Structure formats: structure tokens, C-alpha cells
């Protein structure tokens, strides 16, 4: 045991200094220590591998505290050289290559390309082919919106919606498998029409799906619209007015959410869209909630279009009868010499397209998807360029998120619906 001290302890200089600090408010205490408050800009790298970026998108976010001051997207991490590969292949073979660009709306990529080539060839798609195309395009639109809804809800934290949407998408992929044999990237659209007629059980199965889908979409709406967290994260966050969006070249649900009802299916109808009666959902404020609501409403409209197309499906050929462009049916190969020659020419060399340049725009789930084809008279295209909507829409992300919090930026990226395959091509 140490002995009891006899004299009082001597305080060191430091302890004496400590004892003299009064309990003054923080600002007074820190004067002289920090000087003026400085705002430090902090650059955060949302790397290409990140659970909340949809695909390999890299964002350099400049933050001031939690507030986003600037965003620089860096892309190219899934650049596949699709346009270069397409120059090397016959027109028929370009279809599967181009389909893999915007990998959620594969029918739309094929439609844009086939439409451009049909325009160059001046080939008419028969009515049944056009209706079948519309059915598959709208089914693809629903499937694309379902994945968007699932992944966005996952980003916002509502992870069960992800599983529900995947369940619905399975039904759609079953239908695609019925009509073409493949779930994704089906090569169903060919130049001149579609590759095959729909099989016998397709119509009843599609009708069943059409009965089920609106009810399920109601469920998703009910779950998300009564979820306080989702509403607070989406309402009023990152609005952008229609004029800035038009200057940035943004089209599709983002533009419609801001109030401009521009939709190529109504404005410049292609592939018999003018035969169908459907509405264009339009938002008011242009914030994240409107973008969400517009896409959810589009699912109902697509169901309505498919119903009309199925009811009015005309009889007739599903692909053009022009043997120079489309393969003859197999039973003809046994009887007709010309059919055999056409088949041989088409499969080995492919059809030749007269020289010229054409730009064919269509309305994809993300906006204006267009295909520019330049042909030089041979059987391979000289230039294929896909004007991808996500590539152009991405420029709006910085404008939308400036001044908002990081969490709002995540929600905005989700509502922007970027597909990196289309952005990078």
C-alpha cells in the first residue's frame, strides 16, 4: 500500500488550462481553433461495381456534406463494339447482335433495326406481322417496366416487390418462349415481319396473363403508394421541368412525367399503332414520384393495347411474301426450284440493300430509340448506329440531382431507368 500523501497535489500546466474552460456554447468554444467554417467539397466514387447503380455505371459525385453538388457519369464499362460488329455481318445476322444492346427491351432494338432496313428495301410488312410485332413489343414493354419497378423498389428498400415483379416477368418470358423458343434475345423480328406465327396455345395463355396483370399492377401500386417511406423518398425529389429536359434530348417516361405528352406511338405511328386506342399517362411536377407513376400507368395501357391487338389479329402472312428478303416456307423448298435458290442466296449471302441512309425512330420503354442504317449496296450494312435513349437521358442525371441529398440521387438514378447495355453499346 502506498503511503497517504501529506501535501495537496500540484496541478500541471495542462490541468490548470483545462480547469479554466467554461461551459460556453460550441461556437464560442471553437473560435480560434477552427477559424471560419470552410465547406469542403468531397468527391465520392460510386464505382462501376455498386449494388445501387443499375449495371456498371460509374458516378463521380461531388458532395458538400450530404448534398450533391455535381455528378460526372463515367461509362464505357460494358462497351461491346456492337456497331462495329454489325458492320461485319449480313443484315440478317445483325439482328441478334443489335438485340443485345439494350438488353431489357430486346424486341425494340430489333424493331428499330428491322424498320430501318425495311424502309431502305421499301418492303411492306403484312398486317398480321405488324399486329404480332405490336403484341410482342408491348409485352416487352411490360417486362422492362417490371424489372425497373423491381430494381427501383429494391434500391428504395422495398425488396419484396422485386420478387413479385420477377414472378410476373416469368409469365411474360414463358409467352416469349412459346412464340419463339427463347426467353430473351429471341430473334423473333425479322426484316419483313416476324420469323414464325404464334403457336396454338399462345392466345389462351396470353389472355390469362392479360387478366392477371392489371390486378397485380394494382397490388404493386397499393403497396408502394401506401408506403410512407417510398412516398417521402419520391415525392418532391429532384424535379426537372420539361424545357430543360427537351434541351437535354430526354424523351420517354421522363419527359412525360414532366408534363409533355410526347410519344412516338401517337405522334408518328409505326407498325399499326394508329389502329389501337390507348392513353398516354402524363405527370404534372416532374419529380421522382411522377416518373414512377407514369411508368406504372404505362403497364395498364400496354395491357389494353395487347388486348386490342389480340382481338383484332388479322389473318394472313406474318412475313413479307417477297422471297428476295424473307426465307420461303420450308414446305416450298421440296417443290419449287426458285424457292430453293432464294433460300440458298438468303442464307449464304443475304439480301442486298440499295445504297442510302435511313433513320428509324421508335418508342422504347426508355424513350426514343432510333436506328440509323447506311447501306452501300452490298449485303452488309456500312454503318449501324443505335440512338439509345438511356445514353441521352443519362445527361439529365446531373441536372436532376444537383442540390439534393445522396439518398435522393439514388432514387433518381433508379427512376431514370438507365440500361448500361444501351448506354455503352
Amino acid at each position: 500500500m502506498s503511503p497517504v500523501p501529506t501535501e495537496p497535489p500540484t496541478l500541471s500546466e495542462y490541468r490548470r488550462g483545462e480547469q479554466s474552460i467554461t461551459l460556453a456554447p460550441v461556437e464560442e468554444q471553437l473560435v480560434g481553433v477552427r477559424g471560419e467554417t470552410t465547406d469542403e467539397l468531397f468527391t465520392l466514387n460510386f464505382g462501376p461495381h455498386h449494388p445501387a447503380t443499375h449495371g456498371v455505371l460509374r458516378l463521380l459525385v461531388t458532395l458538400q456534406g450530404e448534398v450533391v453538388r455535381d455528378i460526372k457519369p463515367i461509362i464505357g464499362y460494358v462497351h461491346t463494339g456492337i456497331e462495329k460488329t454489325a458492320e461485319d455481318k449480313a443484315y440478317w445476322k445483325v439482328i441478334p447482335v443489335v438485340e443485345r444492346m439494350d438488353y431489357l427491351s430486346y424486341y425494340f432494338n430489333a424493331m428499330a433495326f428491322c424498320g430501318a432496313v425495311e424502309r431502305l428495301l421499301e418492303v411492306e410488312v403484312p398486317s398480321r406481322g405488324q399486329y404480332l410485332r405490336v403484341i410482342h413489343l408491348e409485352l416487352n414493354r411490360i417486362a422492362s417496366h417490371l424489372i425497373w419497378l423491381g430494381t427501383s423498389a429494391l434500391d428504395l428498400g422495398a425488396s419484396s416487390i422485386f420478387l413479385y415483379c420477377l414472378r410476373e416477368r416469368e409469365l411474360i418470358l414463358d409467352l416469349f418462349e412459346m412464340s419463339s423458343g427463347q426467353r430473351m434475345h429471341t430473334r423473333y423480328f425479322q426484316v419483313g415481319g416476324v420469323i414464325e406465327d404464334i403457336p396454338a396455345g399462345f392466345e389462351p395463355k396470353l389472355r390469362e396473363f392479360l387478366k392477371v396483370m392489371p390486378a397485380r399492377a394494382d397490388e404493386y401500386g397499393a403497396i408502394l403508394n401506401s408506403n410512407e417511406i417510398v412516398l417521402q423518398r419520391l415525392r418532391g425529389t429532384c424535379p426537372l421541368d420539361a424545357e430543360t429536359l427537351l434541351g437535354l434530348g430526354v424523351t420517354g417516361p421522363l419527359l412525360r412525367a414532366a408534363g409533355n405528352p410526347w410519344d412516338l406511338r401517337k405522334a408518328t405511328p409505326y407498325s399499326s399503332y394508329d389502329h389501337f386506342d390507348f392513353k398516354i399517362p402524363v405527370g404534372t411536377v416532374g419529380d421522382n414520384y411522377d416518373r414512377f407513376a407514369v411508368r406504372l400507368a404505362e403497364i395498364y395501357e400496354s395491357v389494353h393495347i395487347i388486348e386490342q391487338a389480340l382481338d383484332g389479329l388479322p389473318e394472313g402472312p406474318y412475313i413479307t411474301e417477297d422471297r428476295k428478303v424473307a426465307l420461303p416456307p420450308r414446305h416450298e423448298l421440296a417443290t419449287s426450284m426458285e424457292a430453293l435458290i432464294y433460300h440458298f442466296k438468303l442464307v449464304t449471302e443475304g439480301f442486298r440493300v440499295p445504297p442510302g441512309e435511313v433513320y428509324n425512330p421508335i418508342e422504347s420503354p426508355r424513350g426514343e430509340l432510333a436506328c440509323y442504317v447506311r447501306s452501300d449496296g452490298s449485303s452488309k450494312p456500312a454503318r449501324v448506329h443505335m440512338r439509345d435513349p438511356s445514353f441521352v437521358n443519362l445527361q439529365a442525371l446531373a441536372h436532376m440531382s444537383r442540390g439534393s441529398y445522396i439518398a435522393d440521387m439514388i432514387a433518381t438514378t433508379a427512376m431514370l431507368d438507365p440500361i448500361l447495355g444501351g448506354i455503352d453499346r
Partner: protein
Amino acid sequence: MPDATGLELLAAELGDAALETVYFREQATLVVDPPQIRSVLQALRAKGYSFLASVHGVDYYPEEPRLGVLYELLDMSKLDRLTIKLRVPIDAPRVESVTTDWPTADHQEREVYDMFGVVFEGHRDLRRILMPEDYEGHPQRRDFPVGGEPVLFTRDEAKWLERRE
């Protein structure tokens, strides 16, 4: 699209900036003089073509001038589309950037630079967008090889291990 006569009238109005008109498959293309692209686009904007849908490049090998840049304009109220084309030679591929008037051209001009090598003067940040920053060459040019790798079969494993050492 403006019909053929409309296109000719438009070209006449633009005067010496418009070099050629092409009306093909009911789509109108106007070939303009590269140094005047910005004023042409401003004039067309005044006429109602207020939406720039796409800026993309084409390599017209072997015709000279080799590199072309196409601007797709859209008039939303009259539902009219118009393509503006300009051709620049490969040894002097300089075009004035239109990003100040049309913010949408930002990433798209960077892509044309990356893929074709067309330098857009006045672009605030012209660097490669799709290829890695230090990549050499402009892939979309017609004389750039498609490239590719041979498929790595297991039976060739010894060969590629050798090559690595």
C-alpha cells in the same frame, strides 16, 4: 418530314450554307458546310426544329471527305424530322461544337470523337467516353480492324501459358 419541295425551299433559305439536298425514302437530308453548322442549327431552331434527337458519326470510306457527322432534328409541333449532314476530311476533322445551344450534344459529341476522331472545338470536356482513356485509335473508322480473340480452348492451355511468360 418536310416533303421534297419543302426541303428545297429550306435549302434556298439557308443560302450558301446548304450544299446539297437529299430526299430519300421520304426522309429529308440537308448537307451543310461544316464551318457554318452552328448558325444553320440556330436558324433551323428558329423555324421550329427545336429538338436535337441525335448526333452521330459515319465513316464514308473510301469517298472523300471521309468523316460525316449527322444531326437529327425534330419539330415536335409539326411532326417533322430533318437530318443535317456535314462531311469533314480525315486529315482535318474539326467541327464546331453545338453544346452551348443544344446541351444534349454533350455526350454524343464525345462519342463521335471517341469512335471517329472528329474534334469538336468549343466542347468543354472532349475526352473518350466509351473506350478507356488511354486507348489509341478510333474504333468505328472503316480501316480499324474488328479485332477479336481466338477462343481459348483447354487443349491450347499450354500455348497461352507460354505466351504469358
